[in-house]
């Protein structure tokens, strides 16, 4: 039986959700929470409609529009017609199928991966899916959370299950204490730099070790958020007292006796002693520096103190060509110091770093300083709740006084589906998660960094080691 052998966190959550195992090992896996947004759902609802099917568990589903809504002047409606049609389509679908929805003018609206934990909709031990790869974020709660395609969105809407093969277990243990100036973002960028963008393929990564335990929930979400950039199916962190304290009092979380019952179960989820992982990677947090990506995938990352790598030094021909293309696309010179790169735009936000803790970190750097001449710096809170909280703390005033833009919540320049885009050749220090060619707008050049590093870049006008600003 499954419980005779020591199990990992992933094993336990998986086992608790297997409805049926088919003869070839494929499992019908039960899904506790399904988050739906405007971009990957229209074709799924259309599929249901054509087949005459209903949503099986509207009470396990939540919808929100985030990807292509404007982050300015939202009350006046959405100007871009195709974006407006997608949002209106979602609004029609949630009414027709009875799915709970946070309207775009409500404070609960925000990026789907911010609002799940914030509302207590995403809880430990759950299976959570969404038609978006960064669903891995919710794994910070100690849940199994992963992104799915639109056909699978339709599958979950119709059956509340997915057909899945069990992933392998990978352990990433981060020992030691994180140095001053380094954050969860630097941990996860460093990990991707080590294991590569396909290092986690086929695996669910469990992040563990003292440096992970020491992170608050926001930091844990940042780490799990980017596990997909290492190719992993999901990232998870075992629930602990930090998790339980975070859950307490969240609007949709269980309360009172029900919460205590839930916590009893959640305490049983961490890996058993002797549980076996298919792969293990160990990292010492004490050796880290603030990180910054130089190329066009998140694995192309260096410490801020380093220089642009020289593709000529790469022995493998295909890799050499790829590195050379990155250097060219990014407009770099091999050997150039990262801190010599001047930037045009700063973007602080996204499901990676759009939480209140991130905005506090940016404001701490911005306070008493000013955005450098010629730089456009925008701060986009991850949800209406984050925005309200930041305003209650006066962070908006600090940022505005320093010359930052203070905008309405959404995905914004993380993927440039709304009007917030880079123009060709513009260089951007961004707290988002992807630096692919054209991700933030055609021809745009993205350097991924932490919120403090992004704010530092804004006030100096170049990539800057935040530790030098003190």
């Amino acid at each position, binding site marked *: 039986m499954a419980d005779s052998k020591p199990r990992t966190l992933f094993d336990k959550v998986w086992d608790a959700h297997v409805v049926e195992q088919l003869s070839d090992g494929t499992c019908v896996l*039960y899904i506790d929470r399904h988050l739906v947004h405007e971009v990957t759902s229209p*074709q799924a609802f259309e599929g249901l409609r054509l087949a005459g099917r209903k949503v099986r568990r509207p009470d396990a589903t939540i919808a929100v529009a985030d990807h292509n809504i404007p982050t300015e002047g939202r009350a006046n409606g959405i100007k871009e017609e195709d974006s407006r049609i997608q949002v209106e389509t979602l609004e029609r679908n949630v009414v027709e199928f009875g799915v709970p929805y946070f309207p775009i003018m409500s404070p609960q609206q925000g990026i789907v991966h911010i609002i799940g934990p914030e509302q207590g909709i995403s809880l430990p031990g759950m299976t959570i899916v969404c038609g978006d790869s960064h669903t891995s974020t919710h794994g910070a709660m100690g849940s199994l959370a992963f992104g799915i395609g639109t056909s699978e969105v339709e599958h979950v809407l*119709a059956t509340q299950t997915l*057909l899945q093969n069990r992933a392998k277990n990978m352990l990433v243990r981060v020992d030691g204490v994180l140095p001053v100036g380094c954050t969860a973002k630097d941990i996860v960028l460093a990990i991707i730099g080590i294991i590569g963008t396909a290092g986690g393929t086929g695996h669910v990564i469990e992040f563990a070790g003292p440096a992970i335990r020491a992170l608050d929930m926001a930091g844990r979400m940042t780490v799990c958020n980017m596990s997909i950039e290492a190719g992993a199916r999901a990232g998870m962190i075992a629930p602990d007292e930090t998790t339980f304290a975070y859950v307490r009092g969240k609007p949709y979380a269980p309360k009172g006796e029900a919460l205590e019952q839930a916590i009893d179960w959640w305490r049983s989820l961490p890996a058993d002693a002797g549980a076996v992982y298919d792969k293990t990677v160990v990292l010492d947090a004490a050796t880290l520096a603030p990180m910054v990506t130089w190329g066009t995938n998140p694995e192309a990352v260096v410490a801020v103190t380093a220089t642009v790598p020289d593709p000529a030094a790469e022995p493998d021909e295909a890799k050499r060509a790829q590195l050379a293309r990155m250097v060219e696309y990014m407009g770099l010179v091999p050997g150039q110091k990262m801190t010599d790169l001047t930037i045009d735009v700063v973007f602080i936000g996204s499901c990676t770093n759009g939480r209140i803790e991130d905005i506090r970190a940016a404001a701490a750097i911005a306070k008493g300083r000013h955005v450098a001449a010629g730089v456009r710096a925008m701060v986009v809170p991850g949800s209406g709740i984050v925005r309200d909280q930041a305003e209650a703390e006066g962070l908006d005033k600090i940022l505005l006084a320093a010359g930052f833009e203070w905008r309405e919540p959404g995905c914004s320049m993380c993927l440039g589906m709304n009007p917030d885009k880079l123009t060709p050749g513009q260089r951007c220090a961004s707290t988002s998660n992807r630096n692919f060619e054209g991700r933030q707008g055609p021809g745009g050049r993205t350097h991924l960094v932490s919120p403090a590093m992004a704010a530092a870049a804004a006030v100096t006008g170049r990539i800057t080691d935040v530790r030098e600003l003190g």
Partner: protein
Amino acid sequence: MDKFTTLTGVAAPLPMANVDTDKIIPARFLKTIKRTGLGVHLFDTLRFDADGAERPEFVLNQGPYRKAEILIAHENFGCGSSREHAPWALLDFGIRCVIAPDFADIFHNNTFKNGILPIRLPRAVCDQLMEDARQGDNARLTIDLAEQVVVRPNGERIRFEIDPFRKHLLLNGLDDISQTLQHAPSIDNYEARQVQEKSWMPGISV
């Protein structure tokens, strides 16, 4: 979904690793509420310049490859976002099979749901097929799913592995939802058990 049995066609060589879904279909083309019509934007930035003119050096803009039905690439194909618009764009262009050393998980899953066959073969074999593909129209590849082989123009048969359940669905053009609904009684039982054992789990309503 269309069945996938055998396919003989032109293969386009795309010797790139880490072809991400933003490359396959940039985010600005995701604002559709339909599955079709995305083929014209497939590989948009590689295929067209800023003014929308074709880049002649890109493989899909060249003679026989305009009708390619097979794509051959390097490691980690389809990494990045979960957008099913990536396989929709490939399919709409006419690609029914992608061959690479390995694929990103979500993309791999998404191809099957759309009747596209992803084939994993070792890098050295992919490089051989890449050479075949460079001969364009003169070197068609044949994929036989039932037999699980890729047949090279010289007649060599290369075996590939595929999950038996996925193979069954592809060969018969079956969609997953009707398969899963055959297990509806188990799902009912699971839910009944969950109501008992996880009574703490709240429902969502707004």
